[in-house]
C-alpha cells in the first residue's frame, strides 16, 4: 500500500459490516421462501433489493428484525447475533427472551408498505410513543424528540393531526419519523411507496434520499428503479428466494450479467 492512500479509504477496507447476513432461510410450512441469502451492509450504505413479486424481498426484511423468525441462517448487527445467543461451551443457539428481542428489534427501524400508523394517536404521539414507552424518556423529552424528527420530514405543522387527517405521503413520512425517533442503527423500508398515489411518491423518496445522503444505513425493497439508481450503494436482484445478482447500481442496471436480471429490468423499465 502506498503512502498517499486516503486514510478514510484505508479505514474502510478494514471496517466490519454493520449488518451481516449468512445463509438466511425461511419456510412457511412446506414452502421455502428464502433459500439461503447472504449479504453484508456497511455502515452508512444504502442497499436496494429488487426483484419480481414473490421473490422473497419482503421476507428478507421481516426476518432481519425478527418480525418473522428465520428457519436457518445467521444475522449479526454490529457483531452481535440477532434473535438469540450462542451459550455455553458447546455454543448452543438459544433464542432471546421477549424483552431482549424487543430491545434488539428497536435497533432496526421498519417502514411498512401500508404505513401502519397508530390511528388513535396524533402524528406527534405516534413518533413519541416509542421513545417514551420503550426508551423510557419523559413525556417532554419524547415529544421534543418527536417534534425534531417530524420537522426533519417536513411535517412540523401537522404534528397534532391524526393519521386519518393526513395524505398517504404525509402518513408515510410520519412512519419514517417514528422509526428515526428510536435512533435505530439502520432502517428497513418495505416497498414504502407502493401504497401511494403516484403524485405523492416523490415526497417520500425525497426524504429517503436525504437520509441516505446524511449517512443513514438503509435497506430498501422497492420497485422505484429511479430511486435505486440515484441512492443505492449496492443493488441486489432477487428471484425465487435466491440472490441472482448484486453490485453497484450502474453495473446492475446498465450491464446486468444474468439473463434473469436483464429480463426483469426490461420488464419494469419499459412499463
Amino acid at each position, binding site marked *: 500500500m502506498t503512502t498517499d492512500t486516503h486514510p478514510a479509504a484505508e479505514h474502510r477496507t478494514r471496517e466490519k459490516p454493520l449488518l451481516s447476513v449468512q445463509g438466511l432461510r425461511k419456510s412457511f410450512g412446506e414452502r421455502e421462501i428464502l433459500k439461503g441469502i447472504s449479504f453484508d451492509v456497511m455502515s452508512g450504505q444504502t442497499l436496494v433489493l429488487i426483484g419480481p413479486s414473490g421473490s422473497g424481498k419482503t421476507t428478507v426484511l421481516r426476518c432481519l428484525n425478527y418480525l418473522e423468525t428465520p428457519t436457518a441462517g445467521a444475522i449479526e448487527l454490529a457483531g452481535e447475533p440477532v434473535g438469540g445467543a450462542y451459550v455455553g461451551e458447546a455454543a448452543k443457539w438459544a433464542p432471546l427472551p421477549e424483552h431482549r428481542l424487543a430491545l434488539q428489534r428497536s435497533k432496526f427501524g421498519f417502514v411498512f408498505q401500508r404505513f*401502519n400508523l*397508530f*390511528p*388513535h394517536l396524533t402524528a406527534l404521539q405516534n413518533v413519541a*410513543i416509542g421513545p417514551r*414507552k420503550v426508551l423510557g424518556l419523559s413525556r417532554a423529552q419524547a415529544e421534543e424528540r418527536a417534534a425534531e424528527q417530524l420537522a426533519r420530514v417536513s411535517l412540523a405543522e401537522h404534528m397534532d393531526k391524526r393519521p*386519518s387527517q393526513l395524505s398517504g405521503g404525509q402518513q408515510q413520512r410520519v412512519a419514517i419519523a*417514528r422509526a428515526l425517533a428510536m435512533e435505530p442503527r439502520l432502517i428497513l423500508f418495505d416497498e414504502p411507496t407502493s401504497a401511494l398515489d403516484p403524485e405523492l411518491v416523490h415526497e417520500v423518496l425525497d426524504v429517503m434520499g436525504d437520509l441516505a445522503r446524511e449517512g443513514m444505513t438503509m435497506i430498501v425493497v422497492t420497485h422505484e428503479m429511479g430511486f435505486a439508481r440515484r441512492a443505492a450503494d449496492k443493488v441486489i436482484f432477487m428471484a425465487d428466494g435466491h440472490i441472482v445478482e448484486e453490485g453497484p447500481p450502474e453495473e446492475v442496471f446498465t450491464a446486468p450479467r444474468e439473463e434473469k436480471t436483464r429480463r426483469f429490468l426490461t420488464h419494469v423499465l419499459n412499463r
Partner: protein
Amino acid sequence: MTIDWAIVEMAIPLLAVGTVMTLKIASVAALLGLTGGIALGLVSLGGWAWMRWLVRGYVDFIRGTPLLIQIFIVFFGLPLMGFRLGEFWAGVIALSLNSAAYIAEIVRGSVGSVEKGQTEAAKSIGMTQGKILLYILLPQSIRPMLPALTNDIITLLKNTSLLSVISVYELTRSGQAIVASHFAPLEIFALLAIYYYAIISVVSWISRVIERRLPAW
C-alpha cells in the same frame, strides 16, 4: 279484567326499595365483572399457554352451565370453603364470575380483531407484548367493544332477578313478596317489567352518550 289501582299505588314505593338493591348489586357486579373480564381477556391474548388454557376452561364452564346453577354453587359452596358472606355477596360474586367470562370473550374478540399491522408496527419500535396490548391494541378496541359490553351489562342487570332464589331482597323478590301477601300477580309483574325497562333504558342511554364522546379517528 280490572286493575287494582290501590295495590299499584301501594307497590310503587315498595318496589323502589328493591330497585335500590338491584342497582347496588348490579353496579358492584358490573365493576368486578368488567375488571375481571378485561384481565381474563388480556390473559387469553397475551398470557402464557397454560394461563390461556385455564381462562379457556373457565369461560367454557360459565357459558356451558345455567347461571341459576352457578348462583346455587356459589351460595352453597362459599360457606363450605369457610366464607360466610351472606346472600348479597354470594349473589354479587356469582354474577361477577358469570359476566367476567362473557366480557373476557368480548375483550379477546375485539382486541384480537385489531389489524395485524398495528402489532407489527409496535413490535418494530421495540414494544413487548404487554406494552402493545396496553398502549396500542386496547385503546383502539374500546369503542368497538362498547355495544357488546353494554349488552352484557344489560344482561347482568336482568340476571339480578335470579338472585331472588337465594332470598336477596332485590326488585323481583320485593315484587314476589307483594304478590304473596296481596295476590295481584298481573299488576305487580307488569310493574316489575316497567321498572326493569326504565333502568335498562337509562343504561342504554348512558352507553350511547359514552360512545358519542369517545374519540373517533
